[in-house]
Structure formats: C-alpha cells, structure tokens
C-alpha cells in the first residue's frame, strides 16, 4: 500500500535535470532509509546449513538440461538479491509508478520468501481419480463418452510432483523453522489481508520497520521538493 504522491515523478525528473546535486542527495537519503530495511531482510536469510540439504546441492548434469531445474539455494545469492531501488519504476497495469522499491530478485530468495503462503501444507498430491471425460471424435452425433487418465509422466502444475507425498510439507516446515511468514499489510485497512504482501524476508523486514522507512522516503522527497521550490524561486 504505497503512499501516493502527486507530482513526485515530475519532481524527480526536474531534480535530475535542473538540480542534479539535490537529486543525488535525495537519492542518498532515500537509500539510507531503504537500506535499513534491506539489511534487516538480509539478516533473515538462513544459512545454507539451515535449509534442507538437497536444496543446496548442485544437480549433476544441470548444464545439459533442456529445462530450468528447481533453483538451488545459496545464502549468499539470496542475500545479494535483496536490494533497493530509488529510481522510478515503469507504470504497472493500473497506472502507478513506484518512486522507490525494495526488491528480492534472486530465485532462491523469492522461494524462501514466499514458500507456503499459498499452500501451508505444500502443494496437494495429484489425485488418481482425475479423469477427463469427453465425447468421441467421430464427428457430430458421436456422443459416446471416453475417459482418459491424466498423463502421469508430465509435470502437473499446481500439484506435488515429488515421489514423496510429504515433500512440500517437509520443505515448508523446514523454512518455517528458520523464519515465519509475516504479512506486511498495514493494520487497520479495510478488507481482508491477501497473501501478496506476505513473506519471510523483505515483507517481514518491512512489516517490522513499522513504516519508518516509508516515512523517511516521503520526507526526503518532500524535503527535496521544498528545496527545489526554494531553488527555483531564488533562480527566478
């Protein structure tokens, strides 16, 4: 739930064009506020030894895979993927532009961040009773029903593909033992909280920051705006 600031994007553009020093200073102030959150978030990344050992192992022959294998976990990589950005983003589908962002960019870090927030017990096991019934292919009038068992050899999205039916639960239990999922949605808002702002790293750090970083960013922008206004006023 980012705070909406009217004209902030134009201000940033103006700062960069007419007051680059002030722009840099503003960015520095914003970065300082965001860095506290990313630092805390990086602290929540578990060590390699804390997660299930199989997740940290490199698959043999992975270079020859024609598909992208499940990303292995690396604490270093996950920590490096937690960053911030003070540049305005591209508009999202609803037309909003973010002036500053905290990102979790690594694949393994994203998995650690979100695993279990949709299915707390892991993805469901594939039910053998899932059959597809459809009529025959002999043209109009062929109403005979045929059933086809779903292909068990292919990957089934949304289902547990492991031979271990408890694999998902064991994985999530292990992650929960190293860090709990926290919803960063501010309290007091109307509506039920969704899972989109729930995570173990940046969302947890953002929630525990209690809006201080957000306030600092806004304050830095307002300050820059005021200084830029003064600057232009003097120039005029």
């Amino acid at each position, binding site marked *: 739930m980012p705070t909406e600031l009217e004209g902030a994007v134009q201000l940033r553009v103006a700062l960069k064009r007419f007051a680059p020093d002030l722009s840099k200073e503003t960015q520095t102030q914003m970065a300082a506020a965001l860095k506290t959150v990313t630092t805390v978030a990086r602290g929540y990344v578990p060590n390699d030894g804390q997660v299930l050992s199989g997740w940290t192992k490199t698959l043999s022959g992975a270079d020859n895979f024609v598909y992208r294998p499940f990303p292995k976990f690396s604490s270093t990589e996950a920590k490096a993927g937690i960053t911030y950005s003070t540049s*305005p983003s591209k508009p999202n589908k609803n037309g909003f532009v973010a002036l500053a962002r905290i990102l979790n960019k690594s694949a393994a870090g994203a998995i650690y961040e979100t695993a279990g927030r949709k299915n707390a017990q892991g993805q469901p096991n594939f039910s053998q009773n899932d059959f597809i019934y459809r009529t025959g292919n002999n043209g109009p009038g062929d109403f005979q029903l045929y059933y086809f068992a779903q292909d068990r050899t292919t990957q089934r999205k949304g289902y547990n593909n492991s031979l271990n039916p408890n694999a998902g639960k064991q994985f999530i239990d292990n992650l929960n033992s190293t860090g709990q999922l926290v919803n960063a949605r501010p309290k007091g808002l109307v509506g039920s909280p969704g899972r989109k702002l729930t995570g173990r790293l940046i969302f947890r750090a953002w929630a525990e920051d209690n809006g201080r970083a957000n306030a600092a960013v806004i304050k830095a*922008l307002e300050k820059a705006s005021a200084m830029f206004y003064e600057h232009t006023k003097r120039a005029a």
Partner: protein
Amino acid sequence: MATDLVVNIASQFLGKKAFLDADKATKKLTGSVKSLGRVLGVSLSAAAVLAYGKASVKAASEDIKAQKLLANSLKNVGLAYASVDVEAFISKMQSQTGVLDDFLRPAFAKLAGVTGSVTKTQELLALAFDVSSGSTLDYASAVQLLSQAYVGNNKGLRQLDLGLTQAEIKAMSFDDVMALLNERFAGSGKAALNTYAGQMSLLTVASSNASEVIGVSLLGAIDSLTGSDGIANVGTDIENAAKSLANFIDSVVYLKEQIAGIPGAGIVKGAFGLVGNVLGRFSPQRAAELLKEIKGPQPFSQPMTLANQDKGRANLAAQKAAEAAAIKRNKELAALAKSQAKSAADILKKKKETAALDKAMLAANLALGKGTDIFDMDKIQLNAALIGQAEALGKATTGSQILAIANDVQRLKVKQDIAALEDAIASKDTAAIVKATAKLNEDLKILGALQRQDAKLLDINNVLAGMKSTDLINLANLQAALDLLAKFKFPTLTMPGYVDTTTKPSPFVGQPVLDKLTGNESIEAILEYSDAVTTLANVMADTLDAQNYNDFLSLVEFQKKLGDFGGYSANMNTGAGYGAGRVIVEINDNTSGLIEVVQTAVQENNRFGNNLDYAGAI
C-alpha cells in the same frame, strides 16, 4: 517471479496519462485501419469474387462429372435413352425435395442398376425421400434399403422399427414392402419440407445450383478465352477473370460516383442504370432465349433431320426394350420369390412329414421292441436253460452236482442281467440302467462266491434261496430241523489242553458230533445241516468265552496270592504294568568275589543284549 516480490514505496498514479495515450493510439489505429480498409476494399472484393468463382467452377465441373457418370451407368444398364429425362427428373426432384443432385445421381444409378426401369427407379427415389424424412435414416441409406429390398433382402427394414417380427419382415415381398412403407411414410417428405430445416435445404439446393450455373458459364468463358489450351490454366484464368470482373465493377461504380458529382448529369446517371439493368439481365442463356423469341415458334424442338428422326426412333425402341426387360426381370423376380416361397413350403411340409414319420417309427420301434422281447431267441434260450437247470437241480444227488448246477444257473442269471442292462442302456432309462447294473453286480458277486472252490454252504444256501421262489420253502422240514437242534444238550466247554484240577473237564468232551455229509442229502437237509453247524459253533464260542472268563478269574486269584509278595496290581493284566511292590532280592555278601561275579555276569548280559535295568544298582 522476482519482479513480484517488491515493496513499492511512494508511488504516483500515472494512469490518466497512460489511458490518454492509449486512447490516442487506439484512435490512430482506428484511422489507419479505416484507411487500410479503403485501400484493401477492392482487393478484398476481388478475393471474394475469386473464391466464389473457384468454388463455382469446381461445383460445375463436379456436376458435369456426375452427369457423365450417371449417363454411363444408365448406358451400362440399357437405359441410355433416358439420360436426358433422368437429368430433368433429378433437377426437378432436387428442387422439390431439397436433396442435392450430388446424392440423387448416385442413388438413381444404384436403383436403375437394380430395377432396370426408369419408372420404377423414379418411384423408389420418391419413396426413399419419404422414408428418409420420416425416419432417422439419411437419403442414401433409404435408397440402399430399398435397393436391397427389391432383390429380396429385407434386413434393412429392421432399422425402421416397423413393429414387425424378423420372420414377418423376411416373408414380405417387395410389393408388400412398398405398400407398407407408403402407408407408414407417405407425406413425410412434404411435412419435412415445410419445416425450417426443409426450407433451408431447398435454399441450399438453389444456391448450389446457382453456383453450378455460374461455374458452367465461367468454364465456358475460360474455354473460349484459352482456346486450344482448354482449361489447362484454369486457376490463373479464373483469377484473372475474377479480378477483371471486380475491376470492372469498381470502375463502373467510380465512374457512376464521379458523374453524379457533375451538375446536370442526371441523364447520364440514368443511362448507367439502364446499362446496369441491361448488363445484369444479359447472359448467354438470355441471349439464347432472345434468339428463340426472335425466330418465333418452331414446329419441332429438334431440327427435322434424318439422323434425329432415327435417333428418336432408336430411343423409343430402346425405351420399349428396357421397359420390357424390366418387366421381364420383375416377373423373374416374382417367379423367383414364388419359387422360394414354394421351396420353403415344401421344406416345411417335408419337415412335418419327417416328424410324423419319426413319431410313427418310434411307436413301431416300441412295438417291435416288445415283439423282439417276445421273440428274442437269446432270452428264450436263457429261460430254457434256466428251466433245464432247475430240473437238473431236482435230479442232483451229490453236493458237487448241486454246486455245478448252481454255477450254471448263476451264469445264466448273469447273462440275463447283461441282456437286461443292454436293453436298459438302449432305452436310455437311467433308473433302469442303475437297477440293472446293481442286479448284475449282485449276481456277479454270487457267481464269484460260487466259483471259489471253498464256497461255503451258507453262500450256497443263499444262492439256492435266490433260485427258489418263496413258496417252495419247506417250512415243515425247517421246523423239524429246529426241533432237532432244540433237543441238543450243550455241555459247559473248557479250554482245550487246559488242565485245572479245580475246574471241570474240557467242555468239548462229550459235545454232540454231527455226522459228515455224504453227498446224498437233499437241499433241505443241507440247509438244515448248515444251520445246525452254525448254531453249534455259536454255542461253542459262547462256552469258550465263559470258560476264558473263569480262567481269568482264576488267574486273578492266583496273582492275588502272588501279591502277598508285593508283585500284584489290579490292572496288571490290562496293560497297566506291575504294581509298586517288587520282589527285591538282597544279597548280603560277606565274602569277597561274589559281587564281582554277579556284576561280570550282568555286564556280559548287557553285552549280549540282555539288558537289565537295575544292574547299576548293585
């Protein structure tokens, strides 16, 4: 994935601008599309015309091909004279029924091949339309059904659920089939045509015909354009023709619009309308009609040439010949059906006769069987032999003779039993077979007993008893034997060889002695003798049992006396072993050497296998 994991801070809504941009872009795109549409308009029209032209040419060529195939089929069945009429009929029928000529022509060819008659074929085609409209069958299936029924194969009628049994359907003649189908499905086609689907099918026929007409014209045009090349380059020519036609239409429209913009050009515009009407109405067919009108009414549709007169006569003759052939074939089919019916009736009659004959034969066989029983020489001989043996038995004087007669009689009875069993097997009467088998086994058993040389008198008695009827038993003799036995005095028996001073002498001493048989006794006497021996043996056995018990009691008394020495047990005689008390011999050896001697003796005994249990206790 990672892009979703973002905490956005201090955002700004720029959607308005974005939407405005999108609106502008959409308007721009719409304008471009409109321009493009204008640019592509002519081309698109040309493409549509081209596609329709190609389809028309294809439809026309296939139609011509189908016409030629049908004509060939008719020619092969001797109906070539009717090709023109058939085409007219098909054309008329498709416009009336909504069934495309694509289906009618193969159907006509099929039925014409079966019936050999144009008239009958037309009749069946009309009936097939009614049947297909009133049932779930399609037109081709209905035609197939009728063509099969025409030659006597009525199996297909079951699909129509006419409520007839399989036998009824099979027994129907084609005239019956026609009558039934006309009764059930008359008017179905008309009713179907009044529905929306029926109207749509008529429309389909109309559009198909239009396409074929246009295709024929295009083919003719292309043929004339390509000259000696024929329609080898038909695709290219059609395309060019269509494009030319489209360009021409566009040019006319453009010219019309331009002229309309000129003040005072109404006359010219009117002229365009006139030209358009003339162009729209002009066609080769219209031209032919105009020429016909100009020439005025002609006395004959065909020029009065000698060749055409000959052709007309030939067609008439062919028609007559074909109809005659069809009638002949119909008659043949009818005769065949009649013959088949007659054959079936004959077969049925023969079956009935055969059944009656079988029944009579069965009765005759039964009677013959009875007669055979009466005059069966084997049985007669057997009976005679049995009678003879019975007579011989009465004359027999010795036991060996009796035994021999008994053997012979029993063999005859076995022979009789075998014959009875064979009869029972032949009659397939299970109960009789079981009974005869049991009787045979019983007689074989008796025969076996007789054939053993140690045959007992009791067995002989049983055998003889079986040979005699009950009314032949001499009860008086039996009673006399019993009285004689009752007079016997049976003394107390003792164990043979056992001498006991305290008891009586042997019970067998003074027992009655039966004289040995001399071989001259009658059967009654032998029977009495054997009974007496049996009774005596039983009595002796009882006496021996009593004597044994007395001896046992004496033994017990003796053992009780031994019990004074500690060796008695109440159960010692019933396998329970000796009593607790034993005879213990103690040796008090005050001299050296005796123990060693005893021990050596015991060891030697052991060595030789005479084990003594208590040797070690010494």
